[in-house]
């Protein structure tokens, strides 16, 4: 099996807002086995070298979306990235790009949470139904329309990949827009009109310059770039056709 004597250098961008003026790098020499993920590498550092090293993690199986970090400059989930793939080179870890650093590898997600709320990420029923009327039925085709966008785990790797979010932190961004699209595409949902104000706004889809790196780094293959671009077409239709529609809230 694995050679127990292998040691990999892990360079971690450290930042403690209470003591540090600016983030700085520290290199740790971590013994590892072939089955160890990058997350296990930082856990080893915390347990053996410096208990103050701070990072988020929970499930260790790429479903909770907590452990994202920049690994050699690429946004990745550290639990599904393996140290063996970088050995014998040094591996560099930084907090997710484009977000304010709270401490070490932990970023401030409050801006993202606000954006997530702003897309109305829940089904707004087309028509009200009482329980007596039974459940909402959906065909496999209708299910297929939105299910890929429903796979988002809110890990925000796409935000760290997005050059436009890097330039303009007000951009609603790939993740939240993919989730918005997920609800718009749901046959049970009737909230697309209500969500259009955000889609068509200056913080909406048109900030995207279609680099599509978001879709490349998405660990769940949600394809936010596609969701954003479909909504550019929707917003363009809305821009020109709004004059033809009768006034009033639907």
């Amino acid at each position, binding site marked *: 099996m694995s050679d127990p004597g292998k040691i990999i250098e892990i360079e971690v961008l450290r930042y403690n807002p209470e003591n540090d003026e600016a983030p700085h790098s520290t290199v740790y020499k971590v013994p590892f086995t072939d089955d160890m993920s990058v997350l296990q590498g930082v856990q080893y550092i915390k347990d053996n070298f410096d208990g103050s090293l701070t990072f988020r993690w929970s499930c260790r199986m790429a479903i909770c979306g907590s452990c994202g970090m920049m690994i050699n400059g690429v946004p990745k989930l550290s639990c599904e990235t393996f140290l063996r793939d970088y050995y014998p080179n040094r591996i560099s870890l930084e907090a997710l790009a484009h977000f304010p650093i709270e401490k070490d590898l932990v970023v401030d997600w409050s801006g993202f949470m606000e954006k997530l*709320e*702003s897309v109305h990420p829940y089904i707004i029923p087309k028509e009200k139904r009482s329980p007596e009327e039974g459940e909402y039925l959906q065909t496999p085709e209708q299910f297929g329309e939105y299910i890929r966008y429903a796979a988002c785990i809110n890990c925000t790797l796409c935000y760290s990949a997005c050059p436009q979010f890097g*330039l303009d932190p007000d951009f609603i961004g790939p993740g939240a827009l993919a989730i918005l699209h997920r609800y718009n595409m749901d046959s049970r949902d009737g909230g697309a009109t209500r969500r259009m*104000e*955000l889609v*068509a*706004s*200056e*913080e*909406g889809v*048109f900030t995207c*310059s279609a680099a599509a790196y978001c879709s490349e780094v998405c660990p769940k293959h949600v394809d936010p770039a596609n969701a954003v671009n479909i909504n*550019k077409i929707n*917003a*363009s239709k809305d*821009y*020109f056709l709004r004059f033809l529609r009768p006034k009033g809230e639907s």
Partner: protein
Amino acid sequence: MTKNRKRSNAPVFWLLFGAGGMLAALTGPMLIFITGIAIPLGLLFPEDTMSYPKMLGFAQNFFGKGFIFVIIALFLWHSVHRIFHSLHEFGIPAGPTSKLVCYGTALAGTLVSAFVLFRMGF
């Protein structure tokens, strides 16, 4: 969320960009080959294919005029949009001035080509 959001006027520019991109992808390489390589090197086409009288005739034909106009205008709108969105790579902020210069160039090019083509007569 009760934030007051301003509607973006980007659809106008984005649709012109998209139309120009589609047209450029479909006709661009062919036009470069014909006008930039084949004709100057005397390949494939008769020598006078792009001679002055023939091109004038083309520009005076209703459809030829339309083709020239659409190629110039939409290619311009496409390219200025791309340039505008790449400006920050060169350290130029994408503010109202750069927006005006970029899209203004396309608008000027569109108006000038429309004027010149119209003045050529039918």
